[in-house]
């Protein structure tokens, strides 16, 4: 059934799903499952939590389909659900336990090594990555959300603004502030590492 829907646009699928088509919704879930999972993972850094939250995101979207007015794209709408659920989850989690304990116990997969860097600089880059991960997680939620959407998901300020429910200018300022905080925290790494 899904093969027949391969050529359908998101808007068409969203419309059909709104009318009660489970197949149309499944096709949308198939299209966005990886992106939704990865953005949630970027916040939680825990595969189990990312899996649970991604499932919850799609379930909430399915149950709320009839309220989706299609004023924004399905992509923006489901991202907003994912971000809100994740930020709420992190708030609760932060209260329950210290963040230091929280990030332990999951395995990273190595990002592909850039041919531009020598093995020595690669290990330094890896350390920078880990520090950066930590620094990003220490950002206030609003800055973290803007930074993840723009820097990791490649969204424009306007797109991120629609997901976060704020203006393009606000995203621009949050990105500026987030970068200032990050570069201050990572100054030793971003100053020393040379390609």
């Amino acid at each position, binding site marked *: 059934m899904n093969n027949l829907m391969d050529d359908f646009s998101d808007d068409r699928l969203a419309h059909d799903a709104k009318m009660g088509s*489970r197949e149309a*919704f*499944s096709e949308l*879930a*198939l299209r966005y*499952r*990886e992106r939704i*999972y*990865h953005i949630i*993972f970027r916040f939680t850094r825990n*595969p189990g939590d*990312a*899996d649970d939250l*991604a*499932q919850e995101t*799609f*379930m909430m979207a*399915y*149950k709320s389909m009839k309220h989706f007015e299609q004023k924004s794209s399905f992509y923006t709408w489901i991202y907003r659900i994912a971000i809100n659920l994740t930020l709420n989850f992190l708030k609760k989690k932060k209260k329950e336990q210290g963040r230091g304990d929280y990030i332990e116990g*999951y*395995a*990273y*997969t*190595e*990002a592909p090594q*850039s041919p531009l860097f020598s093995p020595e600089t690669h290990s330094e*880059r*890896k350390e*920078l*990555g880990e520090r*950066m*991960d930590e620094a990003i997680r220490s950002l206030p939620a609003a800055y973290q959300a803007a930074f993840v959407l*723009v*820097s*990791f998901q490649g969204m*424009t*300020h306007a797109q991120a603004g629609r997901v976060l429910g704020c203006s393009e200018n606000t995203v*621009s*300022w949050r*990105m*500026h502030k987030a*970068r*200032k905080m*990050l*570069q201050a925290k*990572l*100054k030793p790494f*971003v*100053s020393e*590492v040379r390609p």
Partner: protein
Amino acid sequence: MSCRRYEKWISDELDGMLVEKKKSALDRHLAECPDCGSYRERLARLQEGTGRLPQPGLTPDYWSDFSFRLEQKIRSAEPRPARPQPAFWKWAWTAAGAVLLFSLGLAFWLSRQSAAQGNYIFCFEDSIDNISEEIGDDADLEEVFNSLLLSSIEEHGGGPAYHFSDDPLIWESLSEEEIRILETSLKKDTKS
């Protein structure tokens, strides 16, 4: 213009959001300001580093399982559709309900009617029979009862000044027993 403003522009430029006019002004400033040049370089490295952050390695099997679990949840969340009922049965059930209601109402009304009537007849006859039985051959008791009955008739019939001739149909409302008692009483009065 202060360097702080340019720092904001550097951030916008890294996101590809800086308009051409501002970009030219920024380039001119960077050529003159080593601090801003160094800041830009640090941010560029930071940006580059984000692309190298580790991602969880997820297999196609994981995604199949992800979709399967989601599908299961969606199915269980769907409301069960109500079984369609033919129009004939809807009307049949409505008619049966109405007939049952009417029958119950009628049965209740009839039982009320017969109970009320039965009680009245039973009470009247029963009381007279009981009194007659109680009196038996006791002449004194019969006399007391007769006087009580007469005073009752006088009371209900308009008092001592009441004359039977005022209402020629008074006899119609009296039972055989009452007439017999009255007759006895009148005979006694006539003798005395």
